[in-house]
C-alpha cells in the first residue's frame, strides 16, 4: 500500500510539472511553485538530518576506537567548531567563520582540484599506450590535437591548428552528439517509466 501511494504521488507530481511546462494554466503554475517551495523546505530539513547522521556516525567510531578514529575526532571537532562559530559567534564577512572558510576550506578545495593535473597525466599515459588499432588511433588523434593547440605546432606546420580543430569539430563532436542523443532518449524513457510506475527500482524493487 505504501509503495502504491509513493507511485501515485510520483505520477501526480510529475504530471503537474509536465503540464505546467507546456500549458499556461494558473492552477498548475501555482501547484508547481508550491511544490518547488516544498522541495526547498524539505531539503533544508534533510541537511539537518544529514548533519546529525554524520555527527552520530563519527561519534560512534571514536567511542568504539575503530581504525582511523582520530580522523573522526578531527571531523567532529571541526563540525562543532564551525556550527558554533556560524550560529552563536559571528557569521559576518570579518567573522571567524568566514575567516576559516576563506583560509582553511578554500585552499583545501583548491588543492584537491589541483590534483586533477597529475591525475590527467597518469590517466593519459595509460590511455595512450599503443596496444591495438583503437589505442593507436586515439594516440595519433590526441597528439594531433595537442600539437595544434600549442604555439609551436603552428610554427612547425601551419596546417596543424586546422587539423586539430577539424578533429574536434567533426569526428569528436559527431561521437559526442551520438552519445547525447542516446542518453537523452534513455532519459526520456526512464522518466516515462518512473512516472507510470513501471520503473520501480527507486522503491527498492
Amino acid at each position, binding site marked *: 500500500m505504501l509503495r502504491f501511494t509513493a507511485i501515485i504521488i510520483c505520477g501526480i507530481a510529475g504530471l503537474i510539472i509536465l503540464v505546467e511546462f507546456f500549458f499556461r494554466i494558473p492552477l498548475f503554475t501555482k501547484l508547481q511553485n508550491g511544490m518547488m517551495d516544498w522541495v526547498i*523546505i524539505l531539503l533544508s530539513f534533510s541537511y539537518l538530518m544529514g548533519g546529525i547522521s554524520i555527527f552520530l556516525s563519527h561519534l560512534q567510531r571514536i567511542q568504539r576506537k575503530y581504525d582511523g578514529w582520530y580522523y573522526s575526532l578531527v571531523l567532529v571537532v571541526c563540525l562543532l567548531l564551525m556550527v558554533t562559530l556560524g550560529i552563536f559567534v559571528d557569521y559576518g564577512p570579518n567573522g571567524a567563520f568566514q575567516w576559516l572558510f576563506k583560509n582553511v576550506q578554500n585552499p583545501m578545495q583548491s588543492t*584537491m582540484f589541483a590534483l586533477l593535473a597529475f591525475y590527467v597525466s597518469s590517466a593519459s599515459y*595509460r590511455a595512450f599506450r599503443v596496444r591495438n588499432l583503437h589505442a593507436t588511433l586515439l594516440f595519433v588523434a590526441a597528439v594531433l590535437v595537442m600539437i595544434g593547440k600549442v604555439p609551436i605546432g603552428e610554427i612547425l606546420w601551419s596546417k596543424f591548428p586546422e587539423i586539430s580543430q577539424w578533429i574536434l569539430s567533426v569526428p569528436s563532436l559527431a561521437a559526442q552528439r551520438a552519445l547525447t542523443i542516446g542518453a537523452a532518449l534513455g532519459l526520456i524513457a526512464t522518466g516515462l517509466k518512473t512516472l507510470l510506475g513501471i520503473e520501480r527500482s527507486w522503491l527498492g524493487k
Partner: protein
Amino acid sequence: MKSLSLSLFIIGVIFCTFQISFGNSISTKVQIDSLKIAVNNQQSLPSKVHLSKPEIQPLFKTERLNVFIFLIIISALVLTFLFLAKRNHSLTLRKIAGLDAIDEAVGRAAEMGRPVLFVPGSMDVDRIQTLAGIAILSKVGYECATYEVDLDVMTRFPLLMSTSQEILRQSYLTAGRPDLFSPDRVQYITDNQFAFAAAITGHMVRVKTAAHFFIGEFYAESLVISEAGNTTGAIQIAGTANSHQLPFFLASCDYTLIGEELFAASAYLSREPILLGTILGQDWSKALFGLLIVLGTLAAWFGWTDFIHWFQTE
C-alpha cells in the same frame, strides 16, 4: 535514526503546509501593512493607480510545440513497444560488459574479504542518472548480501542517503539476509564537491576496498576518484551519461557504462519483458532521429531554413 528521519520529515511537511496555506496571505498582509504605515506617516502615494489590461496569452506555450510533438512521438513509441513486449517474451539485449561484471567485482571482493564501495553519482535523487544508478545499487546490494560482502555507500546529499538506505534494506531482505544490513554503512559525506571527492579517495586508500562502483551523474571529481581508485588496484565499474566525464572513466576504470547503457541497466538486470520493450522503443526513436539528421543535412544543403528553424528550442 529512522525515528529521527521520520520526525524531521513530519516537521518539514508541517512547515510546507504552513507555507502553502499562509504564505500568500502573509505576503499580502505585509503589503497592506506597509501601505497603512505609508498612509499614517503621510508619505506620498501615487495619485492615480493605472490598471493595464492584462495581455491574454494562448493556453499552449507555442514556443515549446516542437518539444511537445517529439515528446509525444517518443512516448508513443516507448509505450507501444512496452505493450508489444508483454505478448512477445523473446526479446534479447546485446551484452553489456559493465553490467555483467557486477558479479565478478562482488565475487572478487568476497574472495579478498574486503568491502565494496558504491558512489551513486554526485547529484541528488531528483536527477534521472541518479535513479539509474540506484537501480544498479539495488543489484549490487543483492549480490553483496548473497556473498556476505560489506558494502559501503557514500552520498553527497542527505536525501540520497535515506533513499539508498531504503533501497539496500529491501535488497538485503530480498536476498534473505536482512541481518547483514547496516544503515551506518550508507553515509552522507558533504555536499561540497571536492571535499566529497577527498572523502571517497581517503576511504578507498584507508579501507582498501576491493571493488568500486561509480554510477550516476559526475562532474570534475570523476577523474580524482577514479584515478585514485585505480592506484589501489581495485576492480572499477563506472557509468555516466555526462559525455565530458566519460573519457576519464574509460581511462581509469575496468568497465564503463556509456550514456544509454546506464539507463538500460534496470531492464538488463531485471530482464522483465516490459522494461526490455521500452529499450526497443528507444531504438526506434534513434532510427527516427537518424532519419531526421539525414533530412536536416539535406535541408542545410538546399537552404530550407524554415525546416531547420522548426527544430530549434527556446
